[in-house]
C-alpha cells in the first residue's frame, strides 16, 4: 500500500481516532464498571454534609398559655485547631470579644486537633463580632438555649436546665423526658461553593409543650405579697401556695429565697430549693384542724361542747404542757378560734392514738402528696408503735410531726372541699401542636364527711373574727376561714425548742360557703411580731382579696364602711391628661424591669393621684336612702337610677354602702344589706 496515498492517510488518521476513542471508552467503562462505588463515595463525601439538629425543648405555659419557659437558637463557637495556622493570634482576637483570657482559649485550642469548643451559647452581639472576624478554623454552630422570660416568676416550679438543656429542677426535671424531644440530623447536599441544594431531615422530634395550672398573675401576686412580708418581718424564708379548692390545681407557689433560672449559677443551693414541697417543719397549731376534725367526725365532740382548759396547763405522762395563754372553760369552737393547746390535747387524748394516727394519715401527712414536682418530702410521722405516752398530746397540737407546706394546704383544702382530699398538682396537661391533652388526676378521696367539713369551716371562721387568733386575716367583701400557727423551731445547737425562732403560718380559704381558693402562708423566723395571726394572716388577707377579685369570685359579704370612699381620689385633670396622652405602643419601647423600679407597696407615688377608677361626677347619680325597702323595691329604684345593687341577705334594707347622698358614677355598685331589723348584727352569716 502506498502510505502516501490520500486513502492510506485517511485510514491512518481514522485508526488513530479509533484507538483514541477506544481507549477513552475503555477508561470510561473501567471507571463506570469497576470504580463506580469508590467514586460515588468520594463524591458523596464531598457533597454531603450531616448537620446535627439539637432537640427542640417544649415550651412551658401557664394556664392561660403565657410562656414561662422556652428555647431559642443561639450560636456556639467552636474551632477546628488543625485549620488554624496562628493559634496565638486567634486566641488574642477571640479573647477580646469573649472576655476570656487568651491563655484559656489557647489551652482549649491545644486540647484537640479536630474539635474544640471556644464558648457555647453566645449572646447575639458577640457571635456577630466573631463571625465578622472571619477567622480560618473558627466556626459557629446553632444550639438551643433555655430562657425564662418572666425571670424569677415561679422559678421553683419551673426549675432549670444545664448547658445541654437537661432538666435539673422543677418541672424541667420531672418532665424532662417529655419536654426534651429527640435530637436529629439533616443530610445536606452542597456544591463546591458550599451552597446547599438538597437536604433531608431525619430523627428530630420536638418535645411536648407543658401547660401548668399556675396563673402568672396569681403567681406574681403571691410572690409580691410574700416578698413584702419578708421585708416587713425580716423572716429568713417564706412560702405561699394558692390552690384551687375543688380541683387541687396549684395556682401559685412562691418561695423566698428565690432565684432567677436564667442565671441559676449565681444562686446558692438553698435558694433553689422548693421549700413548699421539700422543707419540713413542725406545723404547730395549724395541725389542730386535724385533731378537731377527727374528734367531730368520730362523734366524740361537737362545736358547742364546753371543755375545761385547766387555766393553761395539763399533765401528760408526767410532763407538764403549758398553753400559750391560760384558758378556762372553752367551747370546741373557741378552742379552735383561740388555739388552745390544752383543749386540743384533751380532744386528742379522747380520740386515742390509733384513731388520731389514722386521721393524720388520711389527711395526707407522713406520705408524699404525689404532686408532680421533684424532691417532695414525705414528712415525719412516726409509726404508731413508736409513739411515746406523750405523743398523742404533742401531736394533737402540732408537735412531734414534720410536715411540708403542700401537705398542710392539702389537709386544709380537704376541709374546704367538703371533706374530699384532692391531689395537688401543677401540670394541667400536655400540648401537642394545638391539641391539649389533659393530665389524668386520681379521684378525690374522702377524709371526713361533708357535714363535718361544714362544721369545721364554720368553726374556722371564728379564727379570723374578733376573739380569734387571726382577725388580721379577715377579708373585705368575702367570708373566709383559716387557722393560725406559731411553731417553735428546734435549735440545732441545743436540740430543744428555740425561744426566739418560730415558723409563723396561716392556712385559710375563701369564701366559706363555696371556697374558690385555699391559701397557705408560712414565714420562717420573723423578727419582732412573730405569731401566725400577726404576720402570716395579713398576707393571707392581702393576697386572698386580690386573687378572689382577679378570679371574679362574687363578693359574699358587704364591704366594711368607709373603705370604698377611702380609695377614691379627687379627679386630677393633669393626671387624666397624662393618661390620655399615653400611647400603648410606648409600653413596648419602655425599658425592662431593671430600669423600672417599683416603689415599695406601702408607698404611694407622688403621681398616684390619678384615680384607678375614674368617677365622673358630671354623670353621677346620688345614692338614695333605701332603708326599710324590700329587695324588689330596692332593685326597681336602683334600676331606675342606673346603679347596680349588690343585694346581701333577705328582709328589708338595713344598711347601704355608699351612704345615702353620696354621688356615684352611673352603673356603679351599691351594696345593700337586708335584715329583719335595722339593728341586725353585721357579722351574721349562714352556712349551707
Amino acid at each position, binding site marked *: 500500500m502506498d502510505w502516501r496515498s490520500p486513502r492510506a492517510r485517511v485510514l491512518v488518521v481514522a485508526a488513530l481516532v479509533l484507538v483514541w476513542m477506544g481507549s477513552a471508552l475503555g477508561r470510561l467503562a473501567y471507571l463506570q464498571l469497576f470504580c463506580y462505588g469508590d467514586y460515588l463515595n468520594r463524591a458523596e463525601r464531598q457533597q454531603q454534609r450531616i448537620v446535627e439538629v439539637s432537640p427542640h425543648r417544649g*415550651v412551658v*405555659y401557664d394556664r*392561660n*398559655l*403565657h*410562656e*414561662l419557659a*422556652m*428555647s*431559642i437558637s443561639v450560636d456556639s463557637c467552636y474551632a477546628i485547631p488543625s485549620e488554624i495556622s496562628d493559634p496565638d493570634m486567634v486566641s488574642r482576637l477571640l479573647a477580646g470579644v469573649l472576655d476570656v483570657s487568651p491563655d484559656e482559649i489557647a489551652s482549649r485550642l491545644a486540647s484537640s486537633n479536630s474539635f474544640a469548643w471556644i464558648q457555647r451559647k453566645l449572646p447575639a452581639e458577640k457571635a456577630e463580632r466573631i463571625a465578622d472576624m472571619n477567622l480560618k478554623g473558627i466556626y459557629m454552630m446553632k444550639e438551643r438555649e433555655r430562657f425564662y*422570660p*418572666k*425571670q424569677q*416568676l415561679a422559678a421553683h416550679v419551673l426549675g432549670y436546665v444545664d448547658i445541654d438543656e437537661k432538666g435539673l429542677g422543677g418541672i424541667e426535671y420531672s418532665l424532662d423526658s417529655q419536654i426534651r424531644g429527640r435530637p436529629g440530623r439533616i443530610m445536606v*447536599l452542597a456544591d463546591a461553593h458550599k*451552597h*446547599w*441544594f*438538597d*437536604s433531608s431531615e431525619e430523627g428530630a422530634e*420536638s418535645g411536648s409543650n407543658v401547660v401548668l395550672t399556675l396563673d*402568672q398573675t396569681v403567681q*406574681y401576686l403571691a410572690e409580691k405579697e410574700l416578698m413584702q412580708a419578708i421585708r416587713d418581718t425580716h423572716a429568713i424564708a417564706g412560702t405561699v401556695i394558692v390552690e384551687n379548692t375543688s380541683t387541687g390545681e396549684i395556682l401559685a407557689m412562691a418561695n423566698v429565697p428565690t432565684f432567677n433560672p436564667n442565671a441559676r449559677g449565681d444562686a446558692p443551693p438553698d435558694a433553689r430549693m422548693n421549700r413548699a414541697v421539700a422543707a419540713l417543719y413542725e406545723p404547730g397549731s395549724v395541725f389542730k384542724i386535724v385533731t378537731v376534725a377527727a374528734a367531730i367526725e368520730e362523734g366524740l365532740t361537737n362545736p358547742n361542747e364546753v371543755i375545761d382548759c385547766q387555766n393553761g396547763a395539763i399533765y401528760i405522762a408526767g410532763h407538764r404542757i403549758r398553753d400559750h395563754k391560760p384558758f378556762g372553760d372553752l367551747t370546741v369552737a373557741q378552742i379552735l378560734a383561740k388555739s388552745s393547746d390544752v383543749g386540743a390535747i384533751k380532744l386528742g387524748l379522747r380520740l386515742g392514738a390509733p384513731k388520731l394516727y389514722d386521721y393524720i394519715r388520711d389527711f395526707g401527712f407522713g406520705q408524699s402528696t404525689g404532686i408532680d414536682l421533684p424532691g417532695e418530702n414525705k414528712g415525719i410521722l412516726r409509726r404508731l408503735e413508736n409513739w411515746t405516752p406523750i405523743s398523742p398530746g404533742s401531736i394533737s397540737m402540732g408537735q412531734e410531726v414534720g410536715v411540708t407546706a403542700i401537705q398542710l394546704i392539702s389537709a386544709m383544702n380537704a376541709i374546704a372541699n367538703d371533706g374530699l382530699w384532692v391531689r395537688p398538682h401543677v401540670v394541667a396537661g400536655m400540648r401537642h*401542636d*394545638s391539641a391539649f391533652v389533659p393530665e389524668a388526676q386520681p379521684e378525690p378521696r374522702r377524709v371526713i364527711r361533708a357535714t363535718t367539713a361544714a362544721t369545721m369551716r364554720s368553726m374556722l371562721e371564728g379564727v379570723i373574727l374578733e376573739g380569734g387568733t387571726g382577725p388580721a386575716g379577715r*377579708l*373585705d367583701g*368575702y367570708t373566709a376561714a383559716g387557722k393560725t400557727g406559731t411553731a417553735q423551731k428546734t435549735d440545732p445547737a441545743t436540740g430543744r425548742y428555740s425561744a426566739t425562732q418560730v415558723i409563723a403560718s396561716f392556712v385559710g380559704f375563701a369564701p366559706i360557703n363555696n371556697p374558690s381558693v385555699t391559701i397557705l402562708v408560712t414565714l420562717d423566723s420573723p423578727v419582732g411580731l412573730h405569731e401566725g395571726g400577726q404576720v402570716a394572716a395579713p398576707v393571707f388577707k392581702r393576697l386572698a*382579696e386580690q386573687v378572689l*377579685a382577679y378570679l*371574679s369570685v*362574687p*363578693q359574699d359579704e358587704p364591704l366594711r364602711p368607709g*373603705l370604698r370612699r*377611702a*380609695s377614691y381620689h379627687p379627679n386630677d385633670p393633669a*393626671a387624666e391628661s*397624662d*393618661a390620655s396622652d*399615653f400611647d400603648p405602643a410606648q*409600653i*413596648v419601647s419602655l425599658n*425592662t*424591669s431593671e430600669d*423600672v*423600679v*417599683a*416603689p415599695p*407597696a406601702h408607698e*404611694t*407615688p*407622688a*403621681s*398616684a*393621684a*390619678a384615680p*384607678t*377608677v375614674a368617677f365622673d361626677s358630671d354623670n353621677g347619680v346620688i345614692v338614695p336612702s333605701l332603708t326599710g325597702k324590700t329587695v324588689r323595691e330596692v332593685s326597681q329604684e336602683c334600676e331606675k337610677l342606673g346603679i347596680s345593687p349588690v343585694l346581701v341577705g333577705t328582709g328589708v334594707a338595713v344598711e347601704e*354602702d355608699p351612704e345615702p347622698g353620696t354621688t356615684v358614677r352611673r352603673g*356603679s355598685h351599691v351594696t345593700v344589706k337586708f335584715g329583719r331589723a335595722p339593728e341586725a348584727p353585721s357579722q351574721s352569716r349562714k352556712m349551707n
Partner: protein
Amino acid sequence: MTEFFTVKRIDNSRVVRAMAPQRLRACVRFVGLSALLAAVVLLYAWQHFQAIQMSYRLEELKSAQAQAVELNQQLRLEAAGLRSPMRIDAIARGQLGLTAPVPGQLAPTQGPAGAVVAQARRDSAPVQ
C-alpha cells in the same frame, strides 16, 4: 487519417426522478425522530438544570423559613418578657401612677355582645 467525433447530445432535462415514497417517509421519520430525540434530550437537560435550580431555591426558602421561625421564637420570647406581670406592675405604679384597687373598686362586668378581643387573646394558640 481523419477522425470523426460524433457528439451525442444528451438532453436529460426531461428526465424526472422517480418518486420513492418509502425513502421519503423514512427520511422524514428519521428527521422527525432525531428532532424528537433532540427535544427529549434538551427537555431532560432543561428539567435537570431546573431541578437543580429549584433545589437551590428550595433550600433558600427552607433557610428563610427556619430564620422566620427563629425570629418568631425570639419575638415571642421578647413579648413574653414584655408581658411579665412584674414589669407591667412596675410601669403601672412607677410611670403611670396607678395604684392597686381596693376591694370595692373591682366589680365584675359583663362585656358587650360580640366582645371577642380578650377571648381571642386568651384562646389564641401559640405559633409552634
